C-alpha cells in the first residue's frame, strides 16, 4: 500500500512510520505545519508546532530512508481548530481541540488530500487498534497500553475513514516499549519528552491566552438562586466541576465546598453550588457519528459504556437516538460534565461512536440551572 505517515516529530509517529516501512508499504513522511508563526525551538510539553519538531520529523524520515515533505495546514487548522476552540469557550463550553484536529484535520483534510494524491492510507502514532469485526467491517478498539490509550480522541472516525487509517503502534504494550524500539532503531527522538499540552497555546498560559482571544471582563459569581457570592476576573477561566480558585469569602450555609455548575457567557456570570447539583444523569448531542458499524436499530435503547474525558473512566450507560439526538443515560450519575465535551460510547473495548455534548440533564430532582437542564431523570 501507499502510506502517508503523519510525522509530528515525536517518538510515537516516528516508530509508527518505521513499522509501516518494515511492513513493506511504500511510505512517505509528512509533517503538518499547523502554526503560522512557528517557534524555533520546542518549549516545555507542547508538541509538533515548532521548527525543531519539523526537523526532528525530517531527521526520522531521513533515517528511515523515506521521502519527507512539510504540508501547510495552518489556515485550515486556525479555522477548524483554533477558532472553534475560542468560539466554544466564548459560548461557555469546554472543547477538546485534539479531537477537533483529528476530526477535521488529520483524518479529514489530510486524509482527503492523501487519497487525492494517490495514497491508500494515513498512518499515525496513535495508541488504538483497527480490527476487523465479526461481520467483516472495521472496528476501532482501545489500545492494550491502557495508560496511553487514545481511542477516545479517535472516536470521531467514521466507517469510511477507518478503511484508510493505520495505527502501527496501536497494539504496543506501553510507551516504554515504543521508546526502546525507537532507540534500537537509532531514531534520535527516542528520548524526546511526551507532549500533552494544547499545541497552539504557549506553555502553561491557557488562561492568559484565552483572555487575550475572548476578551476578559470581571463579573459575578452567583449561587443557584442568583445571589452574588463574589467576583470573577473572566468567566472563561472556569470550567464546570471546578472547585478550587473560586475565592468566595463566605462559606456555604451547610459548610460544604462549592463547585462551578455553569458558565453563562452572555451574562458573564459563573454559577456555583454544591457537588450534588453537578450530578448528571443524561447527556445528549445531535452531532453524533458511528465509528464503523452503528447499532442495528439506533432508536432502541442499548447498553454501552460512555467516556467523557480523554483519560476518564468508562461508565455504564444506555443510549439511543431519539429525535435526531444521541441520548445517553448513565446508570450512576457522572459529575462535572459540560456541554462542548465529547461523549464516546464503547462496547467492551470497541469504540461505537461519539457525540459532542449539547445538553445535560441533572440527576437531582429539582433542577435549578435555568434553561439548560430540562427535567430530571425522565
Amino acid at each position, binding site marked *: 500500500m501507499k502510506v502517508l505517515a503523519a510525522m509530528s516529530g515525536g517518538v510515537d509517529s516516528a516508530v509508527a512510520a518505521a513499522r509501516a516501512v518494515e511492513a513493506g508499504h511504500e511510505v512517505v513522511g509528512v509533517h503538518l505545519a499547523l502554526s503560522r508563526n512557528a517557534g524555533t525551538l520546542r518549549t516545555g510539553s507542547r508538541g509538533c508546532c515548532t521548527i525543531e519538531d*519539523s526537523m526532528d520529523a525530517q531527521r526520522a524520515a531521513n533515517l528511515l530512508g523515506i521521502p519527507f515533505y512539510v504540508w501547510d495546514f495552518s489556515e485550515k487548522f486556525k479555522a477548524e481548530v483554533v477558532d472553534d476552540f475560542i468560539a466554544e469557550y466564548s459560548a461557555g463550553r469546554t472543547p477538546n481541540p485534539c479531537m477537533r484536529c483529528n476530526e477535521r484535520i488529520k483524518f479529514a483534510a489530510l486524509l482527503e488530500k492523501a487519497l487525492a494524491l*494517490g495514497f491508500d492510507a494515513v498512518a499515525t502514532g496513535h495508541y488504538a487498534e483497527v480490527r476487523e469485526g465479526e461481520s467483516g467491517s472495521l472496528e476501532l478498539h482501545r489500545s492494550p497500553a491502557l495508560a496511553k490509550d487514545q481511542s477516545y480522541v479517535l472516536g470521531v472516525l467514521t466507517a469510511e475513514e477507518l478503511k484508510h487509517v493505520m495505527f502501527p503502534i496501536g497494539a504496543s504494550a506501553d510507551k516504554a516499549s515504543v521508546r526502546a524500539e525507537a532507540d534500537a532503531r537509532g531514531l534520535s527522538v527516542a528520548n524526546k519528552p511526551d507532549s500533552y499540552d494544547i499545541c497552539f497555546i504557549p506553555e502553561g498560559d491557557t488562561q492568559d491566552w484565552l483572555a487575550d482571544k475572548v476578551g476578559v471582563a470581571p463579573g459575578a459569581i452567583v449561587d443557584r438562586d442568583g445571589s452574588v457570592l463574589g467576583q470573577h476576573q473572566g468567566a472563561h477561566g472556569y470550567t464546570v466541576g471546578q472547585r478550587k480558585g473560586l475565592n468566595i469569602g463566605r462559606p456555604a450555609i451547610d459548610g460544604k465546598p462549592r463547585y462551578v455548575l455553569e458558565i453563562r457567557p452572555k451574562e458573564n456570570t459563573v454559577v456555583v453550588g454544591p457537588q450534588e447539583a453537578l450530578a448528571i444523569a443524561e447527556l445528549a448531542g445531535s452531532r453524533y457519528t458511528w465509528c464503523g458499524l452503528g447499532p442495528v436499530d439506533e432508536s432502541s435503547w442499548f447498553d454501552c459504556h460512555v467516556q467523557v474525558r480523554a483519560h476518564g473512566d468508562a461508565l455504564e450507560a444506555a443510549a439511543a437516538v431519539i429525535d435526531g439526538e444521541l441520548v445517553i443515560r448513565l446508570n450512576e450519575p457522572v459529575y462535572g460534565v459540560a456541554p462542548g465535551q465529547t461523549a464516546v460510547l464503547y462496547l467492551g473495548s470497541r469504540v461505537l461512536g461519539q457525540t459532542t455534548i449539547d445538553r445535560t440533564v441533572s440527576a437531582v430532582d429539582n433542577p435549578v440551572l435555568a434553561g439548560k437542564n430540562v427535567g430530571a431523570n425522565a
Partner: protein
Amino acid sequence: MGTYLDHAATTPLRPSVVALMTQSLLTQGNASSVHSFGQRARQVVEQAREDIAASLTADRNEVIFTSGGTEADNLAIQGLYSSRNRGDEFKRPIVISAATEHHAVLEPIEWLVANRGAQVHLLQTDINGHISLTELEQFLAQNAAEVALISLMWVNNETGVIQDIPAISRLAERFDVPVHSDAVAALGHMPVDFAASGLAAMSITGHKIGGPVGQGALLVSRKTKLDPIFHGGGHERGMRPGTLDPAGSSALALAVKSAVADLPAEVGAWLELNRRVVEGVASAVPEAILVAGELEVVSERVPNIVDFIFPGCSGDSLLFLLDACGVAVSNGSACTAGVTSASHVLLAMGYSQRDASSCVRVSLGHTSTESDIDAFLQYLPEAYERAKAAGFTS
C-alpha cells in the same frame, strides 16, 4: 537518478571545478603569512580574485570574498547603510528596495528598520515584476538626501525577470545614491558587466553557476565606502575579515570564468529548452499561465528560468507528485521549516494568493537536456489532474 530541473536552487558542480578545488585544498599555509608558504597560498587567492574581476569587468580590488550570496547581500546593505550614516545619527534612514526581492535582501533591511532606525521604501512592481523608473525618479527627487541606498536584484530568482540595473544606477547617480544589486541569478545567465553597470555593490555566489556552496563575493566599486559587519584581522580591504580560502576562492573563480565563457553557447541551448517547456506545458495544460510571459526571453527574461502558475492546484502537491516520478522542480522559496508558502514574489507582482500558491518553477543549468524536459512534460498532465483533485489546504 531522476530529472533535475531546479538549477536555480543549486546547479551541479562543474567537473573542472571539483578537480581544481580538490587540488587547491592541499595548498599549505595561511595566505596572510609572510613566509613563502603563505605567499604561495596568497598567490592562489589573488589569482582567483583577478580571474573573477576579469570575467565581470571589475578591478581586482573590487572583489570581496564572502561565504555566499546571503552574506554578500547583508554586507552590502548593512555596510552601505552604516557608512552612509556614519556619525550622522541616521540622517539617511531610507532604504529603497522592492517586495519582489530575495529574503537575503528583505530581511537585512527589516533588521535595519527594527534595530538601526531605518525606513524602508518598497517600490511598486508591475505584473511583470518591473519597477517604474519614473516612480523611482520622483521619489529620489523628493527624498534623495535621506536615502542611504537602493537595493534591487538584477534577475529575479523565481521568475527570471531582468531588471534594468544600468538604468537604475544612472538614475541614482544623478542623486548621488549608491545602488546594490543581488546578481546571484543573473551571473552566468546573462551578460554581467560590473563596470558598465554603474553599481556600487553587487552580490554573486558560486553554487548557481557550477561552483561550490559557501563561496561568494561582493563586488564593491573603488569609490564606494562600506563598513564591515564583522570585525577581525583586516582582510579584504577591512570589509570582510577572516582567513583567506585558497581552495574556495579558486573554485569560485573557475566557476565564474566557465559560466561567463560558456554563456553564448548556453543561452542558445537554454532558449531551445525554454521553448520546449513552454510549448509542452501549453499543450499539456492549456490553462497554465507563464509568469511574465509577455517579456522577450533573453533580453528581458533569462532563458534558464520558466515560472508557471497552474490554476486550481496547490504548487506543493504538484511538486510532491512530480518528485514521486523523479522530477525535481521548485515552488520558489521554501522557508527553513520546509513549508511552501505562497510566493511573495508573485504576490508583489499582483497575483492573487491562490495563484501565488499554485506556481512551479522549472530552472535549467549547464547539465540540462531535452530528455529532462520530456520527463517533466510526460508526468505533468496526470500530476496536474491529481493535484487539482487534492485542492488547497492552506
